[in-house]
């Protein structure tokens, strides 16, 4: 009798924990593992890996379509962008990406994917419907960061060795301007109102805030973490909260994420995370930030309210990019 009761209890618990694993409010964080050719999927309710999905070679940047039905994956060493059907987890299509795609961004209308071709000194623009190359722009040496402004007017690419931001008019599909920034710019992120562009310079150890209207630098933020060699402070990924309060900057091998006041551009805090932190993603509520830590092979969860790390989650080898599938999508 007792045995049967235990069994029932266990089954009940199992059911309950099964439900907890995917409550209505839980989002899924997709992490690309550069050296495992997989994606790890983290459930935000439990902050545990619930699934691992095989993809192409050396997956780096990942991004959902605006309707969250597709996931675009830069499979750098396969020299393609893969399009995964989110419902089935299967690769549904591939896009011509040019050689060695590393980062990309999707236009808000879902139509144009701007892809950086690091080895070719070019940006390839692909029509996601017809899966054809619309245009290729010349860039400086080793383009990496790509960003499209929320108002869809501008696309930018950062060239690492050229240390330049290239500006493209998305409507006219023309190269408009080039702005020099500090050494080795890795990543760009527009503010929600499309008025500011944040650009991280890995070797310069800085983030440049650019005025989009004039395409000129407004402010250069320097980072200095007590007790950490300055040369190890190498800014890469950037995320901005939509309320305009915070900018988060991943500082690479310094193993910290900087919290920047997005109004004054003062550095508020440095949060210790895993080793060589590269990129980050915020939940839709912006209550948690997930960081990819390449060398330690894990993801740090940061609580945005307290600006404190909550948990480290072991994922695959060399986690690189992060993208969030909101609950119910």
């Amino acid at each position, binding site marked *: 009798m007792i045995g049967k009761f235990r069994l029932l209890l266990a089954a009940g618990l199992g059911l309950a924990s099964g439900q907890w694993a995917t409550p209505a409010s839980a989002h899924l964080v997709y992490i690309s593992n550069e050296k495992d050719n997989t994606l790890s999927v983290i459930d935000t309710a439990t902050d545990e890996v619930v699934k691992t999905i095989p993809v192409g070679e050396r997956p780096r940047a990942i991004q959902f379509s605006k309707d969250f039905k597709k996931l675009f994956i830069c499979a750098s060493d396969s020299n393609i962008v893969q399009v995964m059907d989110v419902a089935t987890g299967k690769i549904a299509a591939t896009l011509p990406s040019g050689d060695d795609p590393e980062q990309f961004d999707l236009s808000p209308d879902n139509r144009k994917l701007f892809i950086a071709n*690091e*080895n070719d*000194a070019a940006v390839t623009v692909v029509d996601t419907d017809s899966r054809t190359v619309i245009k290729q722009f*010349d860039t*400086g*040496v*080793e383009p990496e960061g790509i960003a499209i402004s929320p108002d869809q007017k501008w696309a930018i690419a950062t*060239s*690492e*060795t*050229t*240390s*330049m931001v*290239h500006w493209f008019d998305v409507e006219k599909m023309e190269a408009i301007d*080039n702005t*020099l920034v*500090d*050494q*080795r710019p890795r990543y760009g992120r527009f503010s929600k109102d499309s008025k500011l562009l944040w650009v991280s310079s*890995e*070797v*310069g*150890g800085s983030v440049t805030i650019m005025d989009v209207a004039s395409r000129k630098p407004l402010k250069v933020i320097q980072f200095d973490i007590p007790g950490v*060699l300055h*040369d*190890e402070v190498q800014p890469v990924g950037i995320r901005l909260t939509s309320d305009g309060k915070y900018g988060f900057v991943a500082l690479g*091998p310094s193993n910290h994420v900087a919290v920047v006041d997005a109004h004054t551009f003062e550095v508020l805090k440095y949060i210790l995370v895993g080793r060589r932190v590269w990129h980050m993603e915020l939940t839709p509520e912006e209550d948690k930030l997930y960081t990819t830590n390449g060398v330690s092979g894990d993801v740090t969860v940061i609580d945005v309210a307290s600006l404190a790390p909550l948990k480290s989650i072991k994922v695959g080898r060399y986690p690189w990019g992060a993208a969030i599938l909101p609950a119910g999508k």
Partner: protein
Amino acid sequence: MVNTAGWRALAAAATFVVFAAPALAADPLAIHVLYVEQKIARPPTLSNLDPPPPDLGLQGARLGIIDNNTTGKFLKQSFDLVEVVAEPGADLIAAARPKLAQFDLIVVNAPAPVLLALADLPETKGRLLFDIGAYDERLREEDCRANVLHTLPSRAMLTDALVQFLVKKKWPQILLIAGTTTADKAYAAALEASAAKFGAKIVERKDWTANADLRDTAAEEVPLMTQGAAYDVVAVADEGHDFGATIAYNSWDARPVVGTHGLVPAGWSAVIEPWGAVQLQNRFKTLAKRGMQPVDFAAWAALRLIGEAANRTGVIDAASVRAYALSDKLQLSAFKGRGLSFRVWNGQLRQPIHLVTSDNQVAVAPIGGFLHQRTDLDTLGLDEPESKCKAFKP
């Protein structure tokens, strides 16, 4: 025989008037760089499997020009290289001399005496020379020249990097086997100085005087040479790659080989992958059809410095480029994981030194824990207080 080859034939000397006057970054700017190389006759070696490539250094300079032009096209700046290569026995000075007056920026791949002779010519006074081929300490010390910058590390930087690693590993007991050439002796002396600097110990020094072909008898000879004092590593000083390869696995004790063979400290290596280096390696391989070596990297870095100066300041006369290089504005990004700058007291490019095997980067110096009040990069090589260089004093 002297080869004078230009990627782009040089037009009238009038082109060079732009050097004299500062130009705005937005104005079209043509930057002409002279590459001069004195090839030397290599002494015969026991093994000839891996001779130095004939275009060592030159291909690095060419890649630098290509990279600069990729950037330059957005700033209306164009870069070209004129190449003067003197074969062994030919007189580089005589070949290069007619061209020297036309160039502010000159990349020199030559042994120390030739470099010094070039730097002391009236034609190169006030010009800027980049040493990419000579490791000699004296060029950074008593024989330093105000018109010479070094993008190649010095021997002391290499051996300091190696000894830092050995100390960190707690392998401080070194058995040194040194060749007899001037370069080998200089390498051995640098290693001895580094050991003294960081608290390692040369427990015994053996000079390689054998003149037989040891490839067949190394298994008998090397064990005899390497027994006696207890040691943690065998350090080899054989820059000409004559005997060094025969030491590994033939030592009496089971000890790693370091120095010019085995675990090698180097300014660059084809095995370096991090910090985006794969992209540079791939570009180089596509161009040169071989791996990138330290002298190639030094040439590339010199060209990148010139490119940075042109991009950032729009002024490319020798004095301005020199001032930019020695300023705290420079943070040269060169796939070494951190920004590089020059030592203001002797014109040496500060840089991490890579500790590599033939297929792996084992470590990068400065090794964690070796500190310096200015930057830990200055734990590598001779420091300012001990410098004998006077030419850089204000």
